[in-house]
C-alpha cells in the first residue's frame, strides 16, 4: 500500500517546476550569479542548404567529440558530481561543468526536470531499431532506476511487456565463482538463475527465452572460450555450448537476434569475431574483422547490407568486408548515406535519411543491376525483389548535437527510407516510407526483359507512409500508418 501511495504521489512530479529565475526574481544577487536558466528552445523548422546539410551529415557520421566548456564554479560540488557520474557510468562528455552539476542535482533530488538529464541518461542507451522495442515512454525516472540504479549488474529489456533481464557476477577472493541472471516483470522478480563457472557478458531475450553469453571459467580462471546458454521461460537451461575462437581474450560485446539466428559480436584488442548460431546453438557461420577495441563498448548493432552498422559509445561504425571502421564518408563502397530532410528541434539537429545501394540511376542502373551483381542473374519474382529491396534499404534518423555534430541517438527501420521531418505542437514527426511491394516489371509487361528501372515515374515500387512521433528529447512516443502510399523517389527533391 505504501508503494502504491508513493507511486501516486510521485505523479505530482510531472507538473513542471517553475523557472528558477521567476521564483528567485526577488533576489537579484542570486539571479546575477546563478547559473543560466533553463530555457525551452522554440522549435524551428529549417531547411538547410545542401552544403550545410552535407556538412551536418558528415559531422554526424564523423562523430566529432564535443569540447567541454570549463567554468570555474564550486569545484567541490563539481567533483562530487563527477564522482557520481563515474559511480553510475554516466558519460560527462559534451556537458559543461554547470550542466554536469545541474544533472547531478536533478538526479539525486529525483526531480528529473532538467532537459540535459535525459541526454545524459540516454548516452548509454542510444540506437534503437523501431520495429523492435523503442525506449519505454514511462519516463526518465524509470529509465534511471532501471538502467543505472539497480546495482545488480547490467540489464536487458525484453520484447515482453514490462520484462527486463539483469545480470551480475558472484566474486569471492578475487575469483569469479558464478554469474546470476534475474528476470524481472513489472519490477517483481520472476526468477533468478545461477550459472557456475561462467562470466556473463551479454543477454538477449527472444520471445520468452533468453540467450546468455559470456566466457567459460574453470577454477575461477577464464578459459577464453565463449559460452552461450539458452534459458527457457522458467530459467531452465535448454542448452549450453562452448565456442572456440582465434581471439586471445574474446569478450562478447553484443548479441543480435535476426531471422532465427543469434549473432554474437566478440572483441579482443584488435579484432572482432562475428559468430552466427541458430536457435539450437548450432554453428552457422563466423568471420573476423579488424577492429580497434578501445573506448566504449558496442551498444547497438543493426544489420546493414553485407555488414553491420554499430554504435560504439558515441561513434557510428560500420563493419564491412572484414573491417570495422568509423563511418567517415557519405559513400562507402556499394552503399550511400543519403540525407533526405533535416530539422532543428529543441536544440538538436535531426537528420532523416536512408542507407541505400550505391546505384547510379544517371548511368542507367537500377536495383536489378545490383541484384545481378550479387546473384549473377537479372530475373527474379516480385516477392524476391521486394525482399531484396527491403534487405538493401534502411531508413535512419540521426539526432545530433548542432555544434559538435556529435551523434547522440539514432533510429533505424529496415526495408524503408526516411522522408520528411515536421515539427508541430512541440513534437517531431518523421515520415517513413515502408516498402510493401516492389513490382517486378516482367510481371507487368510480360515480354520486357530489360529496363528494370526503379525510380520516379515508373510506379513499380510502392511504399506505405508511416509517421513516427518524437518528444522534444528524441524519445519515440507514437507511430501510425497514414494509409497513404507513395512511389520510390531516387533522390527526394
Amino acid at each position, binding site marked *: 500500500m505504501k508503494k502504491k501511495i508513493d507511486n501516486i504521489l510521485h505523479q*505530482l512530479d510531472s507538473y513542471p517546476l517553475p523557472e*528558477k529565475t521567476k521564483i528567485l526574481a526577488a533576489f537579484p544577487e542570486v539571479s546575477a550569479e546563478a547559473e543560466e536558466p533553463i530555457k525551452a528552445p522554440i522549435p524551428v523548422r529549417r531547411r538547410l542548404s545542401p552544403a550545410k546539410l552535407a556538412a551536418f551529415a558528415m559531422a554526424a557520421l564523423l562523430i566529432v567529440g564535443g569540447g567541454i566548456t570549463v567554468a570555474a564554479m564550486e569545484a567541490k560540488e563539481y567533483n562530487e558530481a563527477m564522482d557520481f557520474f563515474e559511480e553510475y557510468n554516466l558519460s560527462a562528455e559534451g556537458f559543461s561543468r554547470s550542466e554536469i552539476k545541474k544533472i547531478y542535482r*536533478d538526479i539525486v533530488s529525483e526531480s528529473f526536470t532538467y532537459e540535459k538529464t535525459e541526454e545524459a541518461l540516454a548516452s548509454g542507451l542510444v540506437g534503437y531499431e523501431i520495429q523492435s522495442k523503442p525506449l519505454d515512454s514511462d519516463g526518465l525516472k524509470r529509465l534511471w532506476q532501471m538502467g543505472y540504479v539497480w546495482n545488480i549488474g547490467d540489464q536487458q529489456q525484453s520484447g515482453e511487456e514490462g520484462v527486463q533481464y539483469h545480470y551480475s557476477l558472484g566474486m569471492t577472493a578475487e575469483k569469479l565463482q558464478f554469474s546470476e541472471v534475474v528476470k524481472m516483470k513489472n519490477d517483481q522478480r520472476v526468477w533468478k538463475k545461477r550459472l557456475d563457472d561462467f562470466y556473463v557478458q551479454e543477454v538477449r531475450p527472444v520471445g520468452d527465452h533468453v540467450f546468455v553469453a559470456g566466457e567459460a571459467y574453470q577454477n575461477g580462471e577464464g578459459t577464453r572460450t565463449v559460452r552461450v546458454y539458452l534459458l527457457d521461460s522458467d530459467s531452465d537451461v535448454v542448452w549450453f555450448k562452448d565456442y572456440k575462437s582465434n581471439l586471445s581474450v574474446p569478450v562478447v560485446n553484443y548479441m543480435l537476434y535476426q531471422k532465427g539466428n543469434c549473432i554474437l559480436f566478440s572483441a579482443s584488442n584488435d579484432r572482432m569475431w562475428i559468430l552466427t548460431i541458430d536457435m539450437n546453438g548450432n554453428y552457422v557461420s563466423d568471420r573476423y574483422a579488424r577492429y580497434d577495441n578501445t573506448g566504449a563498448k558496442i551498444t547497438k548493432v543493426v544489420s546493414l547490407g553485407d555488414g553491420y552498422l554499430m554504435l560504439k559509445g558515441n561513434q557510428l561504425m560500420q563493419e564491412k568486408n572484414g573491417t570495422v571502421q568509423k563511418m567517415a564518408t557519405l559513400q562507402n563502397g556499394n552503399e550511400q548515406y543519403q540525407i533526405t530532410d533535416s530539422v532543428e528541434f529543441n536544440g538538436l539537429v535531426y537528420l532523416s535519411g536512408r542507407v541505400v545501394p550505391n546505384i547510379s540511376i544517371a548511368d542507367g542502373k537500377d536495383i536489378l543491376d545490383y541484384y545481378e551483381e550479387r546473384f549473377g542473374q537479372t530475373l527474379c519474382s516480385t516477392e524476391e525483389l521486394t525482399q531484396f529491396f527491403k534487405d538493401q534499404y534502411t531508413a535512419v534518423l540521426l539526432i545530433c548535437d548542432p555544434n559538435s555534430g556529435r551523434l547522440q541517438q539514432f533510429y533505424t527501420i529496415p526495408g524503408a527510407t526516411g522522408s520528411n521531418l515536421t515539427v508541430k505542437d512541440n513534437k517531431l514527426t518523421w515520415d517513413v516510407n515502408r516498402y510493401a511491394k516492389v513490382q517486378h516489371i516482367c510481371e507487368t509487361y510480360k515480354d520486357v526483359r530489360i529496363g528494370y528501372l526503379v525510380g520516379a515515374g515508373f510506379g513499380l515500387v510502392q511504399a506505405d507512409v508511416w509517421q513516427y512521433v518524437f518528444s522534444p528529447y528524441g524519445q519515440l512516443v507514437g507511430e501510425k500508418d497514414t494509409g497513404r502510399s507513395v512511389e520510390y523517389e531516387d533522390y527526394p527533391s
Partner: protein
Amino acid sequence: MNILWQARIDKQADKALCDLSQGDMNGLSVIYDLYGRLILSVAYTIVGNFADAEDVLQDVMLLLARYANLYKAGNSPRAYVMSITRNTAINLLKKRKNNLSTDEIGEVPSRDGKLASVEVQDLLAQLTEEERQIVTLHIYAGLSHRQVAEMLEISPSAAEKKYQRALKKLKKHYES
C-alpha cells in the same frame, strides 16, 4: 526515495543553508535545485492546486533567505524546509478558506485548472487535512514519524497511529 540519495541531497542542502546563513545567496539557488520539487508537491497536497503551490514555493524561498540564520548546521535541512513549507501552505490555505463559504471548508480546494492527476486528487480526497500532511510528509517527503510529529506538534506514537489509520483508510478505498 533511496535513503542514500536522500542523505546525499540533505548533506548538500545543509551546506547550502549554511552558506545562505552567511550571506551567500547562491545557497538559495542550490536549495531550489534540491528541494524545489519537494516544496511544490508538498505544498500542492495542502493547498490543492498548483497555482497556489507555486506561490507557496516562492514564499518559502523568501522565508529561507530571510530566516537563514535560524537554521543550525547539522540539523535536518529537509525537516526544516518542510516545516516552513507546511506552515506557509497552511497560512495560505487559511487565507483562501476565509474567502470560502462554510460548506466548502474541508474540501480539497481548487482555484483553477492547474490540478494534479485524477489519481492524486482521488487519493488526497480520501484523507483529512491532517492525514494528508502525515502521509505526504512521511511517504513522499521522506520524513520520519518523529519529524512529522514535531512538525504537527503531536507525539511520535500519535503520528504513527494516524499514519496507520490513513493507510487503512486508503487500502479500504482501493480495495472497494
